[in-house]
């Protein structure tokens, strides 16, 4: 791999867009190239800073009300609805700009990971909702991490870290097997006051660390991050700031455990 290629692909590495094989290739190049390694470190740090700074805007409540109010009234009979299909909508404003040299090199074809992040996010929301209904929050009920962790053994191909954060204000209540993306996945369940936090943990081929991002879907906050070959999704109806606090404390504890 040349430095020119690595310079583009290291971004895909940071973003978790590389499949495992190519992630290794980029990592191999970087291991032997101080210049690219420095680039990677700098960009990774920048990504983390950006993830930390809250750069999103909240839509003003008045705008939300206006749009909601316009919904039922603006429903036109079908015959009046204009024709353009989604395809046309998408095509209509292609910038017509240069297809980059990169596209021509064929690098693109190798890059994309197979999963569809958004689809998985909505499955995370569904799994969280399911867990709140029908009294199926936990398969193993215990506030003891040494009971919950072994319970997962033999049930999953990966042993999720189970960390008691009770002293930090997040009570461990148990664990559960769940299904996301048609795979069995570990869910570690915490409580913050009366609110449930589900922490879903799944194995990933990509060992790259991905800094946390918070998204809001259907009123739930989801904090997603990756570390040491595991993907994490923490979901709850607590505020984004409290969920961040949970994630930071969890990550810090994982860090301490692996050092200690």
């Amino acid at each position: 791999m040349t430095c020119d290629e690595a310079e583009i692909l290291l971004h895909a590495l940071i973003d978790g867009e590389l499949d495992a094989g190519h992630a290794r290739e980029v990592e191999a190049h970087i291991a032997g190239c101080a210049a690219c390694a420095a680039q990677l470190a700098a960009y990774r740090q920048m990504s983390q800073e950006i993830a930390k700074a809250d750069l999103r805007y909240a839509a003003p409540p008045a705008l939300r009300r206006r749009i909601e109010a316009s919904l039922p009234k603006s429903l036109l009979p079908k015959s009046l609805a204009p024709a353009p299909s989604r395809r046309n909508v998408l095509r209509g404003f292609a910038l017509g700009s240069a297809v980059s040299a990169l596209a021509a090199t064929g690098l693109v074809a190798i890059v994309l990971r197979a999963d569809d992040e958004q689809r998985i996010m909505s499955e995370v929301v569904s799994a969280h909702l399911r867990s709140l209904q029908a009294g199926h929050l936990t398969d193993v009920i215990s506030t003891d991490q040494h009971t919950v962790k072994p319970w997962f053994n033999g049930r999953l191909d990966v042993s999720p870290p189970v960390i008691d954060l009770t002293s930090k204000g997040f009570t461990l209540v148990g664990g559960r097997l769940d299904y996301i993306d048609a795979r069995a996945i570990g869910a570690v369940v915490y409580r913050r006051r009366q609110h449930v936090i589900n922490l879903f943990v799944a194995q990933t081929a990509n060992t790259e660390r991905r800094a946390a991002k918070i998204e809001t879907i259907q009123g739930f906050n989801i904090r997603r991050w990756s570390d040491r070959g595991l993907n994490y999704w923490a979901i709850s109806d607590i505020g984004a700031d409290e969920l961040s606090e949970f994630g930071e404390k969890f990550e810090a504890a994982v860090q301490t455990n692996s050092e200690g």
Partner: protein
Amino acid sequence: MQPSNAEDPDRARRFRELALPYLDDVYTLARYLLRDASDAEDAVQECYLRALKHFDGYRGPAMKPWLFAILRNVCHAEYARRASAAAPSLDDLPEPAQQAPLWREEQQTPEAEILRERDAVTVRRLVEALAEPFKETFVLREINNLSYREIADAVGAPVGTVMSRLARARAMLRSAWMAEQEPSK
């Protein structure tokens, strides 16, 4: 009241469930693209009107890139309007960083929070100053959290183009960021 299509209530409900959860995302993109709060509001409202109109042609699965694609269309029309009205160029618009941040209601602000907000204001300003099409690629990836393929869908460009734009965007942001941190003279 005109008699409405029997499917309409259901359609409105589906639209509301699918599209409204992304209102903050759409508004965020509009703020970065237009750099003006009230223009952004107008654009978002227009975006949702158009989305509703075209909703029958929508075939999932990813609602977010679809809404972004429509919003871009609206924003490009707005660029054209500004240009033809000989409006002040984008650089002359009031500095959005000066406006009250909308992202959280203030209660009491501990020191760490103040620092974080100051950082956020700086980073927002630097991101807003990026040139197109690098800015939108960057915002879609870093702030709206789209995958490369979803960005490609939303902007109607090949994934390779998305990748090279993102690399450029990050390089530009990084140098702007470093310039910012040097003591000003």
